[in-house]
């Protein structure tokens, strides 16, 4: 995995609350056996109408959205199904981070393991972002700092371990494998076996 340090980009804003992973990528696209190429199904049913034509009103289809790497979503982004296809699709489409006031638990886990940043900010910062689509902002992972275009900076929380893995481009499986001696000892010493 590539190391991540700083992301600077204009934002795309989807203010709706509770954007679930079924919207991010509908289930009928989950029959794939690969993790590649899912970007073309991102927000499929919002991006395209039922004839498969581009829905011009949808925010990702606006000319300003092109090249944006940061998505600003409503509260409780990524709720619902545990499908990792959701962060895979977001990454493949070109997004590198989502900013919201709350991001669902399993989606957060899945994102951090794939180098997609789930950034949680306070309501005031979120409101500013919602009101100014297209604002150029900077996410500094090492400093855990999000900076708005006027220079205002806010800290964001992120699991320290995941942050360090991402900053160094380390795969978490490698870390787990280093714990093998402890795992073996646990297996031998437990009082009952599953």
């Amino acid at each position, binding site marked *: 995995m590539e190391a991540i340090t700083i992301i600077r980009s204009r934002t795309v804003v989807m203010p709706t609350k*509770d954007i679930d992973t079924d919207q991010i990528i509908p289930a009928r696209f989950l029959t794939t056996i690969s993790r590649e190429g899912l970007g073309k199904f991102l927000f499929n*049913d919002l991006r395209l109408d039922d004839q498969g034509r581009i829905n011009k009103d949808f925010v990702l289809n606006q000319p300003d959205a092109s090249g944006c790497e940061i998505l600003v979503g409503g509260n409780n982004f990524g709720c619902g199904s545990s499908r990792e296809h959701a962060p895979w699709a977001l990454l493949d489409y070109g997004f590198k981070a989502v900013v919201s006031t709350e991001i669902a*638990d399993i989606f957060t886990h899945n994102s951090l393991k794939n180098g997609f940043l789930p950034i949680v900010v306070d309501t005031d910062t979120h409101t500013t972002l919602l009101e100014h689509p297209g604002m150029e902002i900077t996410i500094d992972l090492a400093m855990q700092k999000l900076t708005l275009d006027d220079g205002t900076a806010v800290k964001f929380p992120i699991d320290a371990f995941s942050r360090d893995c991402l900053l160094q481009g380390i795969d978490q*499986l490698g870390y787990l494998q280093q714990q093998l001696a402890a795992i073996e000892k646990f297996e031998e010493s437990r009082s009952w076996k599953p």
Partner: protein
Amino acid sequence: MSTQETLHNKVWNEHVVVAETPDSPAVLYVDLHIIHEVTTPQAFSLLREKTLPVRHPELVLATMDHSTPTTPVSSFKDLEIVGAGVARQIRQMEKNCQEFGIELLGFGSSSRGIVHVIGPELGATQPGKTIVCGDSHTSTHGAFGALAFGIGTTEVGHVFATQCLLQRKPKTFEIRVEGKLPVGVTAKDLILAIIREIGVNGGAGYVIEYRGSAITAFDMESRMTVCNMSIEAGARAGMIAPDDTTLNFLHGLPRAPQDADWDVAVTRWNELRSDDGAKFDKSVTFAAHEMQPMVTYGTNPGMVIGINEAIPDKRSDPSFRKALDYMQLEVGKPMTEYVVDVVFIGSCTNSRLSDLQAAANVVKGRKIAEGVRMLVVPGSQQVKQKAEALGLDRIFTAAGAEWREPGCSMCIGMNGDIAGKGQLTVSTSNRNFEGRQGVGARTVLASPITAAASALAGKVADPRAYLQE
């Protein structure tokens, strides 16, 4: 040392391989890993890339349910009917399990079914186990006092390779339900009411423990319905302490401990309850007697109203407006005014024998309304066989419903079972998200008896008017 522990903490502590620090999460051991065809192919690919074996193939329970069709299929040629992608995914699952030495309860197995239905019915789901699956409704297994939660595909790969996960300990949330549920009000109505109250993110960061007299009075199938939808409140897991009801359910099941092992296990399981005075991070109490049949009106499982209540006016909220627009519903009207196109009885929330029995009791000797399509999809081959032995299939087909093969079916529109654009479906599943049951399909979540009553009425209906002996 006299510390009072919660049920969750007891199970958690028993599985810590390496303790959590501020800089690193805990390494948590997994006792049972349930897998299916949709969220595993990329994890198997990871093993191949790194030339790793599955560390404990004997701790994996594998089946196929999500993309498998529920029309009878006897050959792969039939599968192509649903789609080439589905056929390829199912073939890949067979190949993966074979290559990595995992027993697959696949086509032709009398144990095949929805992941969260077969774990319990085989006795693989047991108190005190840690159970994971690449599916968010893994919380279902918490009904047995297991710590069970959904994981992503990368984590599926972690468990394959190491039998462990990197986890931070969640907080604990006590939900007490005291008293007795009125007639016609089910576990499904209770959990919908709870989600309405605490919100679709009310459980975020927590493991919920359901307690109180209404919960202990439930049979295992109702307990599973409650724990199943914990994820719809954003919780990591839901749990219920094991008791005699749990033991009676498990005793004699093929994968439960047998003979002397059973007695040893029971001694251990009897410790699995929150001690008196154990501290929860958060706590709420509900009164069971105040409950009524519940239905959803919006596009998340927290948008819930009583069956005779009017859709509330929250038009100042743009998300609410978007949801009502999608659902084509009006503020101020009760759901009972709306015509139903499809009724779906199934999914890991409500496809067990007691669910089908309750629905059959409503439709018995009656006909579903003109123009309504009703699908009844048992949760597993075992449920199907038991239901057929009781004649439930004939009750449903005589009423005009379709009796299908087991699978996730219309819970997730990826196996050929979908509702059409704009069609209103009363569904016993767990998610009413936009497009979940087909592009433009409108989903109303309800209990099996509300769903069955709605099929008869041709409109969303109060089940209490349709209950019979």
